[in-house]
């Protein structure tokens, strides 16, 4: 699918499905048939095998880390937080975005969410699961991770509630479980549709159990819609608080560059930014692999590209605020840190981060590029790389040059660091590949509503 083809297929601005999609049955079949009726295909299995292999490598990296300890990583006596914390912040950011996107668009009644919300919510579940691995891994004594949970143990001790680590535990746990509930509430009507669709009895029973006897009566729709909206209202502040807590992991310390009140909102915007980049990539793959050109139209990419562009501007302003407050505040440590960012050991990574996060999305000022597949993929991947660099550089720049010059150390990651990161990336894709064969990655009932509404226009 080329950019030119996408432009050719572009619908009128106010339409979110192509006029060729007219019947409700068409929507159900367009989404369900590729999943239930068609075999997965060679490309699917190649991707599956490749991702499974890299996931296995990542699992081995984790197993070795558990067996031999953090000495296998690049962390040193000064840079005590390395890849694991950067990966955690990056993944939790992506994870936060899915529910935030879905709930914000639901509350603001954005019709175009119908085609992308399911993928965004699924992204949340998998990304938060990946994020949850890293704080446990970083504990050092991982077998005791359950000590974070309050239970009446024989030693009579309780968790240290003032610790940001305990805050992280509760925020990740609550957010993951809440996101699963939110995802499930939105999924029930579609599970019922799969149950009622002709197909293998075993699968229909599987969906029947998950659908919990959903019939689609007005009473059920009222209850489902009401709860979905209420949960969206809860989800928005929840998401902001989860990533704010991650920001406080840094901001609650006394290290130069970290003690900034801007960190919580800055982290939330960053999460939104990187999350939208992942949604663009996922939706592009779903559209292409399931031939959903009628339900996911170029206008979807146009609006998502605009969100990425707006977020990039806010990110640029955040970086500027960081530099300005260092200069305006006059703290020698902060000024030195800003100078180090541009001239120190990681200067080229810092400039690359600025290029990816601030400059590259400016391409989306050009309307044509907002619906061009190559530009969308290039900028989205760039944003993800840029946001990961931002997360690692927050750690490296500050910890490499703390208050005590005799304690300055440069950080160099090891192969184990990279293998674990690659493993989580592959596991994320692998989970998505499995999900795409199990549940509809586009919300059928919401798109039906959209089709009916646009058909009346």
């Amino acid at each position, binding site marked *: 699918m080329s950019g030119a083809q996408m432009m050719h297929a572009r619908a009128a601005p106010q339409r979110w499905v192509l006029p060729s999609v007219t019947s409700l049955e068409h929507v159900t079949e367009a989404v369900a048939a590729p999943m239930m009726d068609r075999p997965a295909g060679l490309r699917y299995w190649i991707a599956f095998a490749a991702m499974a292999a890299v996931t296995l490598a990542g699992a081995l990296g984790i197993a070795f880390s558990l067996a031999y300890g953090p000495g296998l990583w690049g962390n040193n006596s000064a840079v005590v937080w390395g890849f694991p914390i950067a990966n955690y912040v990056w993944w939790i950011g992506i994870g936060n975005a899915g529910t935030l996107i879905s709930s914000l668009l639901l509350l603001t009644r954005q019709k175009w969410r119908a085609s992308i919300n399911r993928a965004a919510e699924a992204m949340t579940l998998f990304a938060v699961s990946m994020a949850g691995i890293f704080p446990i891994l970083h504990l050092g004594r991982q077998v005791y991770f359950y000590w974070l949970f309050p239970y009446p143990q024989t030693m009579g001790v309780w968790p240290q509630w003032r610790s940001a680590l305990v805050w992280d535990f509760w925020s990740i746990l609550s957010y993951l479980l809440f996101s699963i509930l939110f995802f499930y509430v939105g999924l029930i009507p579609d599970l019922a549709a799969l149950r009622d669709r002709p197909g293998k009895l075993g699968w229909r029973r599987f969906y029947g159990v998950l659908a*919990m006897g959903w019939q*689609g009566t*007005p009473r059920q729709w009222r209850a489902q819609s009401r709860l979905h909206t209420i949960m969206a209202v809860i989800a928005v502040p929840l998401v902001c608080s989860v990533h704010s807590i991650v920001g406080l992991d840094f901001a609650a310390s006394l290290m130069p560059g970290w003690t900034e009140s801007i960190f919580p909102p800055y982290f939330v915007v960053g999460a939104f930014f990187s999350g939208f980049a992942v949604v663009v990539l996922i939706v592009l793959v779903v559209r292409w692999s399931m031939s959903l050109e009628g339900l996911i139209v170029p206008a979807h990419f146009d609006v998502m590209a605009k969100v990425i562009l707006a977020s990039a501007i806010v990110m640029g302003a955040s970086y500027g605020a960081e530099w300005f407050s260092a200069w305006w505040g006059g703290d020698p440590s902060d000024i030195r840190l800003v100078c180090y960012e541009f001239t120190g050991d990681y200067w080229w990574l810092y400039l690359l981060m600025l290029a990816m996060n601030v400059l590259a999305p400016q391409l989306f000022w050009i309307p044509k590029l907002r619906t061009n597949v190559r530009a969308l993929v290039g900028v989205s991947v760039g944003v993800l790389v840029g946001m990961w660099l931002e997360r690692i550089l927050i750690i490296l720049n500050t910890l490499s040059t703390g208050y005590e010059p005799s304690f300055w150390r440069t950080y160099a990651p090891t192969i184990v660091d990279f293998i674990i990161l690659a493993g989580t990336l592959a596991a994320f894709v692998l989970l998505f590949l499995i999900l795409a064969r199990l549940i509809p990655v586009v919300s059928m009932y919401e798109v039906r509503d959209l089709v009916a509404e646009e058909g009346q226009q």
Partner: protein
Amino acid sequence: MTAIAIATFDSEGAWLRARTRAIAAGHRIVGEWLPYASKAIGPGEGRGGILSWVLAGGAIGGFGLFALECWTAVVDYPFDSGGRALLSWPAFIPAPVEFAALTAGVGGIIAMFVQARLTRLSDSVFDWDEVVEGSRSSFVLALGCTVGDDANAAVALLADAGAARSRVIGL
């Protein structure tokens, strides 16, 4: 002998039309099944039910965890952490806030299941093809009637309102 006149409609407009006519003609609507949440169904009764459960769930989870924090940090395990106050309530807030959101969601799910009468995996209506079709693509309307002229009139009304398919089911 009672019966049900049941019909499927391809569009929301046809279903609404049939519904209006059926009510005007004095028929009793015994069942409706929709493929999406039509705005025409209105808010219905018991609007605040789910919200109450959500608020109750959130309050129980949030205040419960906060109380646990206070009790463990002040009474059961008074650990001096760098001279900080035992009752460091500002630092105790983040975890209960997160947990309250989760328990609010759990409360809401329970309320939704109760209100929507879910977990009824087996129901006689699943034997009707129309209902099965309803979850995928059609609007389904069922009217109560008696076998004979009344049933014929109901089916005729449904067909006239634009039903794609209609029939009588004897009970």
